[in-house]
Each structure stands twice: as structure tokens, then as C-alpha cells.
């Protein structure tokens, strides 16, 4: 199979032949036209094109596309093995969707319940929101260094990528760019995604200072609203903790993130272990520094969230003052393409800097015009956020499907022609 590195997962999304009715719904959601098959005939996924975003899976009326990677039993075995420290890193969008699988209303924020359930299952916790805050520090510093160099004309300290800078948190978008637009890879932020930062941090800082253990005995589980994260975790370059410890004289070969559970997988795992998320005692994990996160870290799961979080910090770093109003309305909401500009006064030089930013979600509909500008070298923006799924991670391919028949009556009423 072309387009993969050694040991990467290649066929995460596959269509079940017996459930597919050939209705073409999936094709309407597939960002890469990776689904083949005539209308009425059984469809199949071309894995070389597929970016494993799972949009076909969450939108198929018949539930035909399947997530073929099922690590639930393996994770349960690790949890029951007393020698292994199992660390969960939970993405922002999981806490607002996991409740749906346990009969809670859609849109319930269930952070403490989720922490409680994970604790009962035996996980240690490194919230991905914490890593998202760290991601802003890295990615934001990178952006500011580029602006200081390219816009304000300061000398560069070390190698800098090109402007505009694209976000790199979305693994489906990263694979999409690597497959289709290799000429813009230098524009991608070199910062890892929050999940991968969490993995590297857990097995270095975490293993040394927070849960003292040997990094080899640590098992990091990403809990993600996303099927593409399963692909990302399998990329061979993500073994930086092992490299770090080898430099310190500790041999070993292990990935930064050992496996990934989607929100749906986590719901199955908890049910298998007889843990009812709706009934567990709430837990805040206050004493754990790696479970503390800012509001900026949690909005990473929404389209425009990474941008808003980055602006809050960039504004402070450049002007030396906090933003007066933190809610940045132009990048919120579901319109397909959002752009904004912020003018700031650089505290160091006294010059005015205008930062033009753009937000894209839904690669299928909205990416092409923005990326064509960048390829042509005519992009008016300095920072562009891209998320593959419409709406961002809250609508990821790993989220609960058709959640909550809150009322079967309402469901049938909705079918009446006059409703």
C-alpha cells in the first residue's frame, strides 16, 4: 500500500459488505473521495486515499463503515496488570459527548463524571486539555518567532518554517496535506498535536516526577473523539520519550502513545467493566497538576478554538497585556470559512502588527480556496487553523453515533410530512 510509513495502521475505516446499501451518503461526507462503488452497489474504502477521519462512519444511515481497530480488551488487560501504570489522556471533545452513551442529555459537560469513571477503571490522568495549553505555548511561540522575523524584520534564532502557519493538531488534516499538498509542509506548525505532546510528556516528566515509574511500564491511552488519532499514534516518529531516555542511558523501545480509544470505544470499555458513568461519584483530581487546564485548552475541540486560544496568548506575549474581552466572536460558529484580523502594538519595538487569521473546518467544502492562495504565494493570512471535521472535534469520527433516542414519539412525529 502506497503513502504509508513502516508500522503505520493502514486500513482503519472499512465498509461492512453486508450492511452497505450503496446509498452514496458516505460519499457526500468523504473529504478525499476515497469511497468507490456505484450507486446501489456495495461501496468500499480506498485506504491509500483515506485519511481515517471517520466522517462516513458517523453519517452513514446504515452503520456500514466500521472502525477496524479495537483496543478495548487490550486496555482492560493492561488496567488489570498491577505492574503497568496506565495513563489516560482525554481530549476536550470527549467530555461533552461521552454522556450521550450513558443516557445523559446531549451537550452535557461531564468532566468530573469522566474523571470519576476513569479513576474507577484504574487510569491515571493527564488531561489532553493540559497538553493543549502546552501546545499553545509551543505553537504560539513558533508563530510569534515567525512574525518577529518575517513581519518585523528581526534576526531569526534558529530555523523557522514559512508563513502562513497552519495548525497541526488535526491528524486527518496533516495526512491530507502530506498526501495532496506536500509543497506546503513547511507551513505546518512543527508543534505536535496535544495528544502526542501528552504522550511524550507522560513518559518523561510524568514517569520521572508525577507517577514515579519506569517509562517502559507506562501505557499511555489517548481517549479521543477521533478515528484518525489511531493512525497518528502509530506513526513511527512518535517515540521521542524512548529517544530521550536512551540519551540518559535507559534502553527501550516504546511509542509515546501506546493506543487510542475513541469516545465510543471508551463507552464500551466502561460498560464491559460495569462502570456506569452517569452513576459514578464525581472526581476533580485536584492534586494532580497534569489535570489542570485553562479555558483556552478546553475550546480546542471546537472549530476556531485553537485560533481563539492562540490569540489570547499571542496578544499577551506581543503587547504585554491581557485581552480585555476573551471571547473572540469572529472565529466562533459554524460558518464554513471564518477570517479575522487583530491589530496589536508590539511592546518591544512600539510598532503596530496586524495579524490576519483564518479558520477552516470541513476540508471537503472549505479548504480548496484557502490552500490555493497559499500554494500561489498570495495568502493574506499569517495563521490558518484547519480541522477536517465540520464543526471541529466535537463532531469527530470517533464520537457517539445517533445518540439518545430521547423520545421515540418525537422521532416518529418528525417523520410526518407537516412537521
Amino acid at each position, binding site marked *: 500500500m502506497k503513502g504509508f510509513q513502516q508500522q503505520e495502521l493502514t486500513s482503519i475505516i472499512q465498509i461492512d459488505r453486508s450492511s452497505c446499501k450503496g446509498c452514496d451518503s458516505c460519499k457526500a461526507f468523504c473529504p478525499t473521495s476515497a469511497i468507490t462503488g456505484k450507486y446501489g452497489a456495495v461501496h468500499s474504502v480506498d485506504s491509500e486515499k483515506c485519511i481515517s477521519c471517520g466522517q462516513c462512519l458517523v453519517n452513514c444511515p446504515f452503520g456500514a463503515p466500521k472502525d477496524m481497530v479495537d483496543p478495548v480488551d487490550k486496555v482492560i488487560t493492561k488496567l488489570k496488570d498491577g505492574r503497568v501504570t496506565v495513563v489516560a489522556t482525554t481530549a476536550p471533545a470527549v*467530555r461533552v459527548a461521552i454522556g450521550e452513551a450513558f443516557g445523559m442529555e446531549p451537550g452535557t*459537560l461531564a468532566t468530573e463524571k469522566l474523571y470519576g469513571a476513569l479513576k474507577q477503571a484504574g487510569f491515571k490522568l493527564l488531561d489532553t486539555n493540559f497538553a493543549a495549553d*502546552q*501546545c499553545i505555548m509551543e505553537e504560539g511561540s513558533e508563530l510569534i518567532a515567525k512574525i518577529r522575523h518575517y513581519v518585523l524584520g528581526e534576526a531569526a534564532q534558529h530555523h523557522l518554517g514559512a508563513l502562513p502557519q497552519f495548525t497541526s493538531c488535526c491528524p486527518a488534516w496533516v495526512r491530507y496535506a502530506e498526501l495532496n499538498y506536500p509543497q506546503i509542509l513547511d507551513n505546518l506548525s512543527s508543534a505536535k498535536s496535544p495528544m502526542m505532546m501528552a504522550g511524550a510528556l507522560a513518559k518523561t516528566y510524568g514517569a520521572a516526577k508525577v507517577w514515579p515509574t519506569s517509562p517502559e511500564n507506562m501505557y499511555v491511552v489517548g481517549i479521543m473523539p477521533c478515528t484518525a488519532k489511531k493512525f497518528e499514534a502509530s506513526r513511527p516518529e512518535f517515540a521521542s520519550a524512548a529517544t530521550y531516555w536512551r540519551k540518559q542511558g535507559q534502553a527501550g523501545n516504546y511509542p509515546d502513545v501506546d493506543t487510542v480509544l475513541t469516545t465510543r470505544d471508551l463507552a464500551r470499555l466502561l460498560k464491559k467493566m460495569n462502570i456506569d458513568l452517569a452513576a459514578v461519584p464525581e472526581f476533580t483530581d485536584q492534586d494532580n497538576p497534569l489535570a489542570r487546564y485553562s479555558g483556552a485548552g478546553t475550546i480546542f475541540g471546537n472549530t476556531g478554538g485553537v485560533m481563539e486560544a492562540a490569540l489570547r496568548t499571542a496578544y499577551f506575549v506581543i503587547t504585554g497585556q491581557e485581552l480585555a474581552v476573551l471571547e473572540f466572536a469572529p472565529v466562533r460558529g459554524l460558518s464554513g470559512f471564518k477570517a479575522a484580523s487583530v491589530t496589536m502594538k508590539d511592546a518591544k519595538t512600539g510598532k503596530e502588527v496586524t495579524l490576519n487569521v483564518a479558520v477552516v473546518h470541513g476540508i471537503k467544502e472549505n479548504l480548496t480556496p484557502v490552500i490555493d492562495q497559499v500554494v500561489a504565494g498570495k495568502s493574506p493570512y499569517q495563521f490558518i487553523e484547519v480541522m477536517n471535521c465540520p464543526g471541529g472535534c466535537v463532531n469527530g469520527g470517533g464520537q457517539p453515533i445517533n445518540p439518545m433516542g430521547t423520545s421515540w414519539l418525537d422521532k416518529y412525529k418528525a*417523520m410526518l410530512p407537516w412537521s
Partner: protein
Amino acid sequence: MARYDYVEKAVKVSRREFLGVLGVGAAVLWTGAYVATDLVQDRTKYIKLRAKALYLDDGKAKVRQSHNNAAVADVYKNFAEKPLSPLAEDLFHTRYVDRSKLGGLS
């Protein structure tokens, strides 16, 4: 003697068949439109509910900017020095591959 010519009917569809085809066509269009709008509507409804909950989480947070997260500052103070330091580059940054050039995997 009157001459009667037998003329084949111009339209070869009976009234009954015509209504039948029309009915089936309408039903097909109606179901299709219903399924399509229903899917899209439901989808955005869930997106909006979940997104709102995340903004709620942000709104009630005591610390709302990444640079004010004291635990992150501790990681830099005790471990990674500062953003973009050599250790931070090793652990928190990555590189990308041009997949159009990657050959076949068995």
C-alpha cells in the same frame, strides 16, 4: 360507406399507469429529501450542543489563557526550560513526510 381508420393511441400510457408512476416518483423524491434534511439537521444540532458545552467549560474556568496555567509553567520551570528550547524541540515538535513519494508497503 363511412371509412373508419384505426389510429394507434399517441400516448401509450393509461391514466392508471400515469398516476402510478407519478405517485412512486413523488414518494421517492419525498423520502430522499426527508432523509437528506433529517441527517444534516440532526448533525448540526449535536455539533451545536457539544460546542456550547465546551464554551461553557471555558466560561466557568478560573484560568482562561494557556500562559496563565501554572502547571504548564511548572513543566517549563522544572523540566523543559522554555518553549522551543532544545529539549522542547525534541519532545514536543515533529516533522512531516511527503507521502506522495512514499512507495509501496507490503
